[in-house]
């Protein structure tokens, strides 16, 4: 199993470790709820070094990214980032990604850990005919996500750049704890925060400095409950090779006024089922549970948990389009019994 530059630090902190995307990763340190609330109320940090990074450089880097992804990369100025996706030829998704413009002709794409090889093959295959230089830099970066309303305040103590000047989705080079890093005001929790890209050799020094500054270490368990409360999709659950983003609340990523790989197929796909948020009055929905309406099965849960903040069962589910309206009454089958709920807005909780 692969390790990250921080695996020894996690073990020293007594983290519960488990395999995730081929890596030995921390699931929790104290408890998922405590770590979750630390991020919502103060600041926590996550080792996400298992995620993949690709450099895309060259005279046609923009043209290539416009073809590769459905969001409008021409809107991305140097030092800015955008959420995007990698459509396949059938209009489903190879992955969802973040694209950072780091130079005039230089972009960094961050991809999901489980998809690095698949994405790399896809990106390489589509690059044929474009004047671009690709580099799989996944092993060259460690990545620490510092998230929560106090993220800027805690990070500022260790950082040489003025973080108050950084807007959401800004990315820039800086120093943290004396180490050269790339910072991005992005994250996956719904809170303010920064992602700190470091050289693998510097990751532990940065991690220890953040610990010393009072940032709570958090595992992948809390990362999942936080992203679900925030209404963010997880590839392999809400988004897959078979799902069209146009059938989800994330259709805004797809700019139909431009051309991109898989566009015609994506636009021609119907949406018999839509992705919605669900809140239950009682009970905890889980992935794979059936959703009912008017006495009939109309869909299935893709992710579910108990919201550590609202203490309610929350889920995302694909359901028949007729039932997608806000507050539509639905039921989820939990161990043979139906539990009442309704279609909810996203995010599930108010976020900072």
């Amino acid at each position, binding site marked *: 199993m692969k390790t990250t530059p921080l695996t020894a630090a996690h073990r020293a902190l007594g983290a519960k470790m488990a395999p995730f995307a081929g890596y030995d990763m921390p699931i929790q340190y104290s408890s*998922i709820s405590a770590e979750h609330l630390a991020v919502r109320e103060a600041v926590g940090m996550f080792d996400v070094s298992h995620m993949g990074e690709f450099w895309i450089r060259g005279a046609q880097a923009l043209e290539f990214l416009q073809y590769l992804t459905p969001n409008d990369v021409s809107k991305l100025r140097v030092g800015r980032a955008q959420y995007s996706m990698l459509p396949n030829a059938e209009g489903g998704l190879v992955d969802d990604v973040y694209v950072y413009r780091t130079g005039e002709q230089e972009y960094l794409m961050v991809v999901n850990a489980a998809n690095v090889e698949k994405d790399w093959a896809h990106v390489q295959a589509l690059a044929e005919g474009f004047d671009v230089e690709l580099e799989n830099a996944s092993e060259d970066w460690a990545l620490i996500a510092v998230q929560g309303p106090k993220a800027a305040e805690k990070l500022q103590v260790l950082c040489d750049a003025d973080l108050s000047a950084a807007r959401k989705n800004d990315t820039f080079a800086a120093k943290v704890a004396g180490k050269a890093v790339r910072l991005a005001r992005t994250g996956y929790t719904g809170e303010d925060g920064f992602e700190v890209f470091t050289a693998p050799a510097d990751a532990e020094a940065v991690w220890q400095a953040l610990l010393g500054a009072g940032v709570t270490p958090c595992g992948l*368990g809390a990362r999942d409950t936080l992203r679900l409360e925030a209404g963010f999709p997880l590839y392999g659950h809400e988004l897959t090779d078979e799902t069209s983003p146009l059938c989800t609340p994330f259709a805004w990523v797809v700019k139909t006024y431009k051309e991109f790989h898989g566009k015609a197929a994506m636009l021609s796909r119907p949406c018999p089922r839509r992705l919605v948020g669900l809140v239950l009055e009682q009970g905890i929905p889980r992935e794979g549970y059936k959703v009912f309406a008017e006495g009939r099965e109309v869909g299935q849960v893709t992710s579910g948990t108990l919201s550590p903040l609202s203490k309610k069962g929350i889920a995302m589910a694909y359901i028949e389009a007729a039932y997608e309206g806000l507050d539509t009454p639905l039921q989820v089958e939990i161990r043979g019994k139906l539990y009442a709920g309704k279609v909810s807005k996203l995010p599930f909780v108010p976020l900072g």
Partner: protein
Amino acid sequence: MKYPDNLRYTKTHEWVLLEDDGIVTVGISDYAQDALGDVVFVELPEVGEQVDAGEGVAAVESVKTASDIYAPISGEIVEVNTDLTNQPELLNTEPYGGGWIFRIKPDNPADVEKLLEASAYQEFAESQ
């Protein structure tokens, strides 16, 4: 992790205590509660229900996951721990005490002897 010697255990991580009155008390092991993490909901069986050994009779939900709790022996459910309705976290804090889940009147008290002893269960759990 604690594995009290006076209890018997199952490979599905329940513990069993044969009480003096011939009733057995059932809960989940320290190992199991630790693996589950924060317990947030316990679905209890019904008193009076006749259950078979190995049958799923209750459920424990943590933030992370839902797990079935199996009857370690056959018999009749004679009591359930209603404290868990309001304090599911007792499973984390007192797995062998206030976090007990239900009591069974065994069809055959000798069935308890067939379950794992503490040392054998510890070896099994820690090899998972």
